[in-house]
C-alpha cells in the first residue's frame, strides 16, 4: 500500500480496523478525540460498531463484556479518563480478557492540562488499579510505529488473554507522518472457545475475577504472574541507537525518545559517545536489552515528560550499577533537543562519577 499522511490518533484507528478490531467503546477527551471521530465513521463501513459510552467507567465495562463475548475490542482515552477505568482494567486483567486500551497522555494531576505528557507511566506499568496485575504496555515513538504496535497489541492481547495498553501522548496523537498500513484487513481471528456466546452444544463458560477462597485466589495470582514471566521472556522490545560504544546512554520512550535521538545526533557531532536506549515495551521492561545497551556506559540519563517515573525501572533493571540521572519537563512542557544535549554533554564530562 502507498504511504498516506495521517494523524497519529487516526492512524491508530485505521490500524485497529486492519487488525480485525470491530468494536470501540469510549468517551470523548482531548487530545485523543480524532481516534473516536475516525472510528465513528470507519467502523460502520466494515460492519463494526462504534459506541460512545456514557462515561469512561461504562466504556471499560462494555469492553469487558465485549471481550468476554469473544470480540476484538478497544477503548481509548487520556489520563483523567484512564484513571476512571482503573477498577475496570483490574477486572479485565483479573478475568484475563484480551483488549486494547489507548492512553494519549496529557498533563496532570487532576484536570491538569491538555498538552502532551508522560506522567501516567507508573499507572500504566505498576498497575494503577488495585491488586497484583500488569498490563502489557507498548510505547510507540512515531505514527508508523503506532500502526505497527496497534496490530501487535491485538495479537498480544489474544495470545496472553491480557489487556494491552498503547501509551502515547498528545504529540504522537496529534502529529502527522507518512504511514503504510498492512494491505489486508484481517478477517480471520483466533478462536476463543472460552468466550460467552451462548452455551451452544457445550458446558457454560464463565468470565470472572472473583475467588472467595484465598487459596484459589493465590493460585490465580500465580497463574497471572506466570504469564507475566513469559512476557518478560518473549515479548520485550527496545530500540538501540548508537549504543554500541556509548558512554552516555539516554533512556527515553515515546515522543521524548525522538527528542533524545536528535540530542544524541547533536552530541555525536560534538564527538561525545552518546547513545539512545528506547524501551518499546514499558511492561515488561526490556531489562536484558538495557543492560546490553549500557555495556560501555558510564552514565545513564533518563529523560521523561514527567517528574521521574521510568527512571525507577531503569535503575532497577541496571541493578543500580551505573549512575542514573534525570531530566524531565512536565505539565505539557516538552524538553528541547538542546536541553537534553546539554545534559548529555555535562554527563560526558563527568565520566563514571556518581551523578
Amino acid at each position, binding site marked *: 500500500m502507498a504511504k498516506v499522511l495521517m494523524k497519529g490518533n487516526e492512524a491508530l484507528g485505521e490500524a485497529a480496523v486492519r487488525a480485525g478490531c470491530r*468494536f470501540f467503546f469510549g468517551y470523548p477527551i482531548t487530545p485523543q478525540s480524532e481516534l473516536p471521530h475516525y472510528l465513528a465513521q470507519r467502523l460502520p463501513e466494515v460492519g463494526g460498531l462504534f459506541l460512545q459510552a456514557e462515561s469512561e467507567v461504562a466504556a471499560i465495562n462494555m469492553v*469487558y463484556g*465485549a471481550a*468476554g463475548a*469473544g470480540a476484538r475490542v478497544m477503548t481509548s482515552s487520556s489520563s483523567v479518563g484512564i484513571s476512571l477505568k482503573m477498577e*475496570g482494567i483490574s477486572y479485565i486483567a483479573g478475568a484475563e480478557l484480551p483488549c486494547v486500551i489507548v492512553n494519549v497522555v496529557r498533563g496532570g494531576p487532576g484536570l491538569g492540562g491538555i498538552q502532551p505528557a508522560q506522567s501516567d507511566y507508573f499507572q500504566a506499568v505498576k498497575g494503577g488499579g488495585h491488586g497484583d496485575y500488569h498490563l502489557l504496555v507498548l510505547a510507540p515513538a512515531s505514527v508508523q510505529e503506532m500502526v505497527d504496535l496497534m496490530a501487535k497489541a491485538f495479537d498480544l492481547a489474544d495470545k496472553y488473554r491480557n489487556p494491552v495498553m498503547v501509551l502515547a501522548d498528545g504529540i504522537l496523537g496529534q502529529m502527522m507522518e507518512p504511514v503504510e498500513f498492512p494491505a489486508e484487513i484481517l478477517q480471520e481471528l483466533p478462536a476463543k472457545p472460552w468466550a460467552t456466546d*451462548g452455551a451452544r452444544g457445550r458446558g*457454560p463458560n464463565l468470565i470472572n475475577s472473583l475467588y472467595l477462597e484465598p487459596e484459589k485466589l493465590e493460585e490465580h495470582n500465580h497463574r497471572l504472574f506466570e504469564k507475566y514471566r513469559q512476557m518478560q521472556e518473549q515479548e520485550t522490545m527496545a530500540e538501540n541507537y548508537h549504543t554500541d560504544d556509548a558512554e552516555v546512554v539516554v533512556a527515553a520512550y515515546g515522543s521524548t525518545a525522538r527528542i533524545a535521538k536528535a540530542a544524541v545526533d547533536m552530541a555525536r557531532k560534538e564527538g561525545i559517545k552518546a547513545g539512545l536506549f528506547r524501551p518499546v515495551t514499558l511492561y515488561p521492561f526490556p531489562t536484558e536489552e538495557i543492560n546490553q545497551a549500557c555495556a560501555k556506559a558510564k552514565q545513564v540519563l533518563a529523560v521523561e515528560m514527567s517528574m521521574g517515573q521510568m527512571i525507577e525501572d531503569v535503575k532497577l533493571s541496571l541493578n543500580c550499577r551505573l549512575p542514573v540521572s534525570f531530566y524531565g519537563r512536565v505539565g505539557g512542557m516538552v524538553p528541547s533537543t538542546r536541553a537534553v544535549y546539554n545534559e548529555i554533554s555535562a554527563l560526558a564530562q563527568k565520566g563514571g562519577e556518581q551523578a
Partner: protein
Amino acid sequence: MITIYERPQSLTANTMHYCPGCTHGIIHRLVAEVIDELDLREDTVGVCPVGCSVLAYNYFNLDMQQAAHGRAPAVATGIKRVHPAKVVFAYQGDGDLASIGAAEIVHAAARGEKISVIFVNNAIYGMTGGQMAPTTLIGQETTTSPNGRDAAVQGYPIRVAEMLATLEGSAYISRVSVHNNVNVIKAKAAIKKAFQTQLEGKGFSLVEILSTCPTNWGLTPLEAAKWLENNMIPYYPLGEFKAAKEVGS
C-alpha cells in the same frame, strides 16, 4: 405420575448460598423457567452483579459474566452488541443498580439497549451487612441508618421503574413481587414479557422485583414476606409502567 414442577434445566444442581428464605432463590428459578420455556438455554448470556447474587454464575446453567459493582448494564451492552442475536440479561440488586450503577441503568434504558434486566429490590445491601440502599424506606433501620432513614439527611427512596419509564428507549418496565404465590406467578409472567420484548427487538426491558432479606431485616422469612407486603408495596406500587404494544402476542 408425571412431574409437573421441578428444577428447571437452566439452573445447575448446586445448592445456593442464600440465607434461608431469601427470595433471591425464587427469582433465580423464575428466570431459569422462562429461559427453559422460551428454549433459550443455549442462546442466552447472563450477567451477574456484585451483591448477594454475585455467585449466580454457580446457579445459572448458562454462559455467564460476572460484572463489576453497578456495571452489569454496560457489560450486558458489550455482550449484546457483539452477539445481537443472543439473549442477554443482567441480574442486579438495588444497591448495584440504583446506587453505584444509576448512570449505567439510565443509559442502557435511554439507548434502548436490547437487554433484559432483572432488578431485585430488597431495600437493603444484603451482601455487605445490611447498609442503607437507595430503595431503603423512610424510617427503616440499617447499619448505616442506625436510627432509621431520615429523609432530611439521606433523602428519599428511588422508584426505579417509574424513573426509567420516562425514557424513550425503555420498552418494557414493570414492578412485581415474590412474597407470595400469586405474585410469584405474576412475576414470572413479567420476566417472560421482558425476554420477549428483547427477542422481538423492541428495546430495553426491566422487571423490578420486590424481594426479601430476612437476615438483614432481622425477621424470619415469613415475617419478611409480610413486611414486604405491608411496607414496600405501598411505596413501590406493583404494575406495568411501560409496555411496547403486542409483545409476546
